[in-house]
């Protein structure tokens, strides 16, 4: 009997707690429902008088989260009739979460979205065509933006641009280079030729006994510092492929062209850095290094080829770092990438959504993130007008003095858009290519062998050019 009493007591407590929780969450959803109802009525009556709520989802590190929140607050202050229901979703779960939302018919109004899904969903009619908004907008025009950052899923139909511009660059531990007496080129004209680059990397690669990779006593099994580190995903190697005159697919989107000589050569050269010259760590080692920034800081790596976004960490780390242009094979280029912000077609408030979209696109409102080094501006004038450039690219720890020429100008003048912008079917193709290239990075097979072998298979997944 005692047990029974205790048991029912427990059950009682539990039921109560459940009811409490239900009550709490119910009242919250009741509120939202109320608001939605009010808006419906209001909207039909008077456009800009009653508060309109738009839903915005985004991801990012804690620093980014805070900056975005501040940015949204300023937006709400400027447009007092709009309330932004901002939902932060961690990057790893973003895809599942937003898929579930869309499946349930609860798609947000404005959202960050991964490139591939954005293009796919746009093709299925789920996203707005930004060009329509731009045509009607008095302040902002398509020409104001950089050229190479548009995600067009069909001629004349664009789902938008990057949330912010990102590009690939070369970062280095300045102290190490000063000690070695080597200067790193910061303009396209001075960019290292590939052989020069290999030599510098060898010079900067040190084994446990202090010999660098150029010396005859170099012990490649016991390296304490690598000359350069680069990721083996598509961005670093595509940058080099472009530099060597190659491309991912051909002009009319009918062929996969990574198996052409220029592309093969570029990829092979990169792989040789790991396996022949031993100046770069293998993917197995890279995957367990916490972050590239840490590698530079702890002097495990002298140079790093990676995205612009690392400036956020580099700037905050206190490390004395420099930026250079990527080494070149035939031309000096950089790769532009960055996932887009989109507006869902299902939005009930297109005009307000556009206002938010515009706001987010304006570097002025997101200035903190630009200054902090995470983002590059979407609008051309911020690269060309000195007074605007000074606002974000000068006098702060994330932007060393070479930044303007090595990164900013390089992006503006020599930036090539990543294949994901224009290749329909990229995600599936990259899955095969990425997996196949693993053997190249491991040094087991040559790039030529692998790419020729998978060429037909990959081409079968190519659906065309956007």
């Amino acid at each position, binding site marked *: 009997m005692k047990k029974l009493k205790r048991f029912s007591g427990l059950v009682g407590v539990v039921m109560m*707690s459940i009811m409490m929780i239900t009550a709490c*969450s119910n009242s919250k959803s009741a509120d939202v429902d109320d608001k939605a109802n009010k808006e419906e009525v209001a909207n039909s009556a008077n456009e800009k008088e009653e508060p309109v709520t738009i839903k915005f989802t985004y991801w990012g590190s804690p*620093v980014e989260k805070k900056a975005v929140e501040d940015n949204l607050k300023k937006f709400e202050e400027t447009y007092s009739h709009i309330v932004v229901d901002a939902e932060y979703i961690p990057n790893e*779960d973003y895809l599942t979460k937003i898929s*579930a939302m869309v499946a*349930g018919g609860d798609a947000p109004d404005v959202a960050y979205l991964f490139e591939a899904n954005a293009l796919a969903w746009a093709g299925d009619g789920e996203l707005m065509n930004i060009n329509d908004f731009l045509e009607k907008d008095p302040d902002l025009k398509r020409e104001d933006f950089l050229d190479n950052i548009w995600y067009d899923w069909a001629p004349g139909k664009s789902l938008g641009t990057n949330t912010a511009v990102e590009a690939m660059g070369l970062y280095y531990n300045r102290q190490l280079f000063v000690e070695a007496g080597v200067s790193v080129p910061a303009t396209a004209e001075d960019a290292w030729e590939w052989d020069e680059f290999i030599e510098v990397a060898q010079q900067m690669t040190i084994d446990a006994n202090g010999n660098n990779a150029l010396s005859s006593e170099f012990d490649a099994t016991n390296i304490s510092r690598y000359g350069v580190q680069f990721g083996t995903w598509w961005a670093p190697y595509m940058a080099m492929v472009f530099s060597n005159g190659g491309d991912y697919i051909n002009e009319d989107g009918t062929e996969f062209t990574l198996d052409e000589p220029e592309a093969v050569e570029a990829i092979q050269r990169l792989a040789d850095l790991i396996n022949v010259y031993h100046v770069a760590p293998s993917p197995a080692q890279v995957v367990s290094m916490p972050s590239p920034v*840490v590698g530079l*800081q702890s002097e495990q790596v002298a140079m790093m080829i990676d995205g612009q*976004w690392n400036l956020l*960490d580099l700037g905050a780390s206190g490390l004395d770092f420099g930026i250079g242009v990527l080494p070149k094979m035939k031309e000096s280029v950089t790769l532009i990438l960055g996932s887009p912000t989109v507006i869902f077609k299902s939005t009930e408030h297109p005009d307000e959504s556009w206002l938010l979209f515009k706001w987010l696109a304006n570097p002025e409102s997101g200035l903190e993130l630009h200054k902090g080094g995470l983002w590059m501006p979407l609008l051309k004038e911020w690269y060309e007008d000195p007074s605007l450039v000074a606002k974000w690219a000068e006098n702060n720890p994330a932007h060393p003095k070479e930044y303007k020429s090595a990164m900013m100008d390089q992006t503006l003048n020599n930036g090539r858009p990543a294949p994901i912008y224009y290749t329909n079917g990229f995600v599936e193709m990259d899955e095969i290519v990425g997996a196949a290239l693993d053997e190249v990075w491991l040094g087991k097979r040559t790039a030529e062998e692998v790419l020729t072998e998978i060429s037909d298979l990959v081409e079968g997944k190519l659906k065309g050019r956007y």
Partner: protein
Amino acid sequence: MLVSKKNTRTVVGKVITYLLLITICFLFVLPFLWMIRSSVIPLHEILKMPIVWIPENIVLSNFTQALTVLPFGRFFMNTTIILVLSVMGILFSGTLAAYSFSRLDWPGRDIVFYILMTTLMLPSFATLIPTFLGWRSVGALNSYLPLIIPNWFCGGATGSFSSVFYIFLLRQFFMGIPKDLDEAAKVDGASHLRVYFQIILPLAKPAIMVVVLFASFSIWNDFLSPSIYLNEVEKYTLNLGLRLFSGMYNAQWNLMMAAATVVTIPPIILFAFGQKYFIEGITFSGIKG
């Protein structure tokens, strides 16, 4: 002769046991030690070789940073609420069902059991979106309901296992308890409920402990369901909160380790105390002889 032989054997046996245990536990605990060590040093010292096990400058700022950047106290509370309520639900519905499937004999019993078991074999992905849509239609999104309620019917998915798992586990345990006790009680006129409460449950304390541990472990580590059903950061569970740290462009290992350390300590303490109480000292007073 017999006595001394036995003593040597016992001593040798004990020594071997100790050696094995120490080796195994040493290997098991090393990663944990590394985690703690990494939580008190700055980021760039984490990968320095050779490994420094006792760092020179201990930095506690990792903890303050980690715990303030995100509301871990809140996450802990949230997870605890979900955990306690879910585990209670599992124990409730699970033990009842397991009793039915192991101690009661009724037509169709085994068929029903096997049908229930099949829910374990479908990967949770397949039912993720349909389940989500279902909860959405009753307006239970952004709440803990989808995470707790199903467990009261042993129908939820905790982590990657359907909660039916616990029915299976308990049934196995129950089947390991000889039937003599039940029969004796029934002869005395006890109803099934009484047998359930007064005989089976106490004897199954180890099993119940195991279910509590397993379920806690599962819910603790689950992030898929919470990520889909919770929209506000304040409602997040611990694992979900930890994943916030690995944002798109950063991976701050020292902070992660600090947060993980803090998060791991309470369960360890709980287990250290709980295991002695539940696992040991359950004697079959009714079964001897």
